[in-house]
């Protein structure tokens, strides 16, 4: 298992972070050492390991819109600007 400067650049892109050439060089050397260490894990036999499956549905509430008028008003009140029953958020672009 190894990691190259290209892997660093790709991971940075996937994480939506700019990685400079200089940073990529620093990370490449450091991550090379780290992933050599991580490679030790491949020596462990995990064939019979089953990861615990969590039944999320049993823990989470149903994803349905709340129909609590008081709560809706409370939430709307947090926003300084409103338009046609909608909260106005800051412009991104």
């Amino acid at each position, binding site marked *: 298992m190894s990691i190259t400067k290209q892997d660093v650049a790709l*991971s940075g892109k996937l994480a939506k972070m700019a990685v400079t050439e200089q*940073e990529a060089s620093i990370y490449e050397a450091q991550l090379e050492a780290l992933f050599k260490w991580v490679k030790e894990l491949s020596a462990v036999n995990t064939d019979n390991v089953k990861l615990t499956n969590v039944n999320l549905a049993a823990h989470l509430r149903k994803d349905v819109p709340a129909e609590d008028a008081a709560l809706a008003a409370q939430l709307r009140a947090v926003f300084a600007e409103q338009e046609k029953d909608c909260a106005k958020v800051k412009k991104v672009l």
Partner: protein
Amino acid sequence: MMTVSEIVKAVTQGTQTAEQITRESLKVIAEKNPRINAFVEVFEQDALAQAKAIDEKRSRGEKLGALAGVPVGIKDNLLYKGHKATCCSKMLANYVASYTSTVVEKLIAADAVIIGRTNMDEFAMGSSNQTSVYGVVHNPVDETCVPGGSSGGSAAAVAAGMVPVALGTDTGGSVRQPAGFCGVVGIKPGYGRISRYGVIAFASSADQVGVLAANVRDTADVLEVLAGKDVHDSTSLEAPVPAYSQQFTADLKGLKVGLPKGFLDGLNETIKSRVEAAAQTLKEKGAELVEVEVPYAKYSAPCYYIITSAEASSNLGRYDGIRYGYTDTQAQDLNAYYEGSRAPFGLEVKKRIIIGTYALTSGRYEECFLKAMKVRELIREDFKKVFTQVDVLLTPTSPTTAFKIGAVEENSLALYLADLYTCQGNIGGLAGISVPFGKDEKNLPIGVQLYGPILQEEKILNAAYHLEKSI
């Protein structure tokens, strides 16, 4: 600085006021913080107002809480409504908490006084408190040394006598390692013992709030206030909370202490001899020493760096300039907007996000992330099995004592090894405590660590109490 129990007694009985105690704490901070840099912000006015309210409560004849008048420092990743919580990062430089974390709520409900926020490694990623945007923290024992991390500010604040207790968080040893470096007590309870509601997330399957204090009894009393189920955190456990310090026993008869085979191999001789001395002390107090095998524990550190980095890459996705964090107002397109808004992350944080993202990419998912998750299961099974044989485990807290500031490059693998003994607790979800047990040849504190199974913090606290008493 008085201990927690001395303060509570004095304030409750009226021999001292909460305001006097708070002013004393503020005075020590004003004197020492310019050199130590443990606090990044002191809530002087709020703290004094809180203290006065506690004194008024007493004068009205009302019953005071379990931490009446105790000044507490809180790590800069714990939310306290109306106060900044920056994770010591440029990314959250102007973030003000819109609600209060459960742990801080509980402290306030117990009549503690929130003194200020303490320094930390950026986003709790580090073992030396050198990645904070507010600058390095100096170890009060030797100011040329690091205090450990990531809760270095909290450990240093207690060690310097600024506050008797401070809260930290521990994802791979971030409470116990700085406690060991600064010569104070630090506990990370088992996963789920304390609510994480209002804790800025690093790695959700490993993060836990912990307590740093000057002695074991104080640690136990504060843990008792913080522990328990919280409806706001589904991972918090529903279980009775014992009066921990009332569980301290006269001796340790009947306690089985596990000494993991091979854990001391290659260790610095001074630290090794202190762990051996601690084992001997526990034996003299009546405990039985048992050599145990935890064969997969040696893989904890690589598992830890893969799993926590993967979780961090997901958790820190929220700092995109829209939901949280810095906003790049100059960007001309969406990609530039995201990249510009995420630019304030420091080198170490970016590196962990890159490790996590890489480990989760389709080409690497199975051999990195999934493999680490499976090995984690084996480690957990190891610990589960071992705790059917013994009650607690004894290990070093860290492979070294505090090192010089700048001596170890913050981003190097060598620094990651500082978490070698502590990250096992987070990977296994165990309860762990570091207690000071002697000093090295440079007079730097050495911590020894006790591990116990989930929801059995009283056992490690009791054993730590006996170690502390023997010094």
